[in-house]
């Protein structure tokens, strides 16, 4: 399995000897073995030139850029090497046929809400009383199959999330103020954390989509907008509760992230470099964690689960096997 590389120090990334070399501010060099690089996250000031871009494209390595505020700037997405006109036609067909689209969208919400429920169940079993929220979510989940339109489905999803977020202050041991999800910009610690962790998951999913023939701009639950890879938002829904939210809970409950991890002057908008590093390192470790897959009968990492999700979607689109969202089974 290829690895993700995270660049936190300022410096330059260059092509050298058919591989890449990172030189930091103090002129210390480090070679990255290009054959082992899955993708690169740039969290700092980095200079590079077009020959680097060339070698990255040749090796199919996406680069994700984040700005000073740890907000996602964008990705360098090398030319698609795996293209399939056939699949694209099917992808579009499943989008424009509202019935087919709704079916896939429902599967995403179904998977996401199940994983949300399981998160709550897990913490409920560990002395955090969130039974009320669990019951509410269970009720709300019944409505998903009944949705007649994407808007309606989004509404149910919104309600589930709202209930879910209401349970957060109970789950998190630290004193937090968190009432509702606020984006653009996030207004407190928790919202900043959620935003950051979610973008990381989007990019992880995008990296996996890149390795399949799927076109990342055509999505089903989210409206396929311009200038963004909305399919990764769709697929990320399923993984956000298990990877992202669990990560946030454990970071906070183990006091790895506290008020000190944020820049106060900016209304908790900005994560410190150390905090961002901690989060990324924990998520990276999580992505490499392996579990025994019940159908494949072999051990797979969480990262590979994301790719499997893409493959399942491909099979559904080509009419080979109906898509079933990933649901935590252990």
């Amino acid at each position: 399995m290829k690895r993700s590389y995270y660049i936190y120090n300022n410096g330059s990334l260059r092509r050298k000897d058919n591989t890449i070399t990172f030189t930091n501010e103090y002129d210390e060099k480090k070679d990255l073995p290009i054959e082992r690089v899955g993708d690169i996250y740039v969290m700092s000031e980095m200079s590079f030139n077009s020959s680097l871009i060339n070698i990255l494209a040749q090796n199919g390595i996406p680069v994700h850029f984040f700005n000073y505020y740890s907000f996602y700037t964008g990705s360098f997405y090398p030319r698609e090497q795996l293209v399939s006109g056939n699949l694209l036609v099917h992808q579009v067909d499943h989008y424009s046929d509202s019935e087919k689209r709704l079916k896939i969208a429902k599967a995403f919400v179904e998977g996401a809400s199940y994983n949300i429920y399981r998160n709550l169940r897990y913490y409920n079993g560990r002395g955090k009383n969130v039974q009320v929220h669990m019951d509410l979510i269970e009720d709300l989940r019944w409505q998903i199959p009944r949705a007649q339109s994407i808007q309606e489905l989004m509404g149910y999803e919104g309600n589930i999330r709202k209930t879910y977020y209401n349970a957060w202050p109970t789950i998190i041991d630290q004193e937090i103020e968190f009432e509702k999800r606020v984006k653009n910009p996030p207004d407190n610690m928790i919202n900043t954390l959620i935003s950051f962790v979610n973008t990381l998951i989007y990019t992880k999913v995008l990296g996996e989509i890149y390795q399949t023939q799927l076109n990342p701009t055509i999505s089903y639950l989210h409206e396929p907008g311009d200038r963004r890879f909305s399919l990764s938002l769709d697929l990320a829904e399923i993984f956000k509760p298990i990877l992202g939210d669990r990560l946030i809970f454990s970071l906070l409950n183990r006091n790895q992230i506290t008020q000190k991890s944020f820049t106060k002057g900016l209304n908790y908008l900005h994560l410190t470099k150390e905090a961002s590093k901690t989060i990324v390192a924990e998520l990276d470790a999580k992505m490499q964690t392996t579990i025994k897959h019940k159908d494949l009968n072999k051990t797979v990492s969480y990262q590979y689960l994301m790719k499997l999700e893409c493959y399942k979607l491909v099979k559904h689109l080509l009419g080979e096997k109906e898509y079933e969202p990933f649901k935590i089974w252990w």
Partner: protein
Amino acid sequence: MYVILVYDIKSDEGGAKALTKTFKICKKYLTHIQNSVFEGEVSEAQLLKLKMELKPIIREDRDSLIVFKSRNERWIPKEMWGIQEDKTSNFL
């Protein structure tokens, strides 16, 4: 699989050339740890590719190259004496 690769290239005529070439090829696949030591996680196919690339460079009668293979990194407990630096880290 997790491998440790070490090489010994004789510094006679043509040795310098073989040395730099070997070094450059190795660093595409593995992390440079010490002077002639590399380590890292590679797939079976990648290791084969590396072998094929190195084959014409290594002079069979003079140079030697050893690859230690392990199924997983965890079966090679690592201790660092002296300078402690994790060169295989993916945080830069």
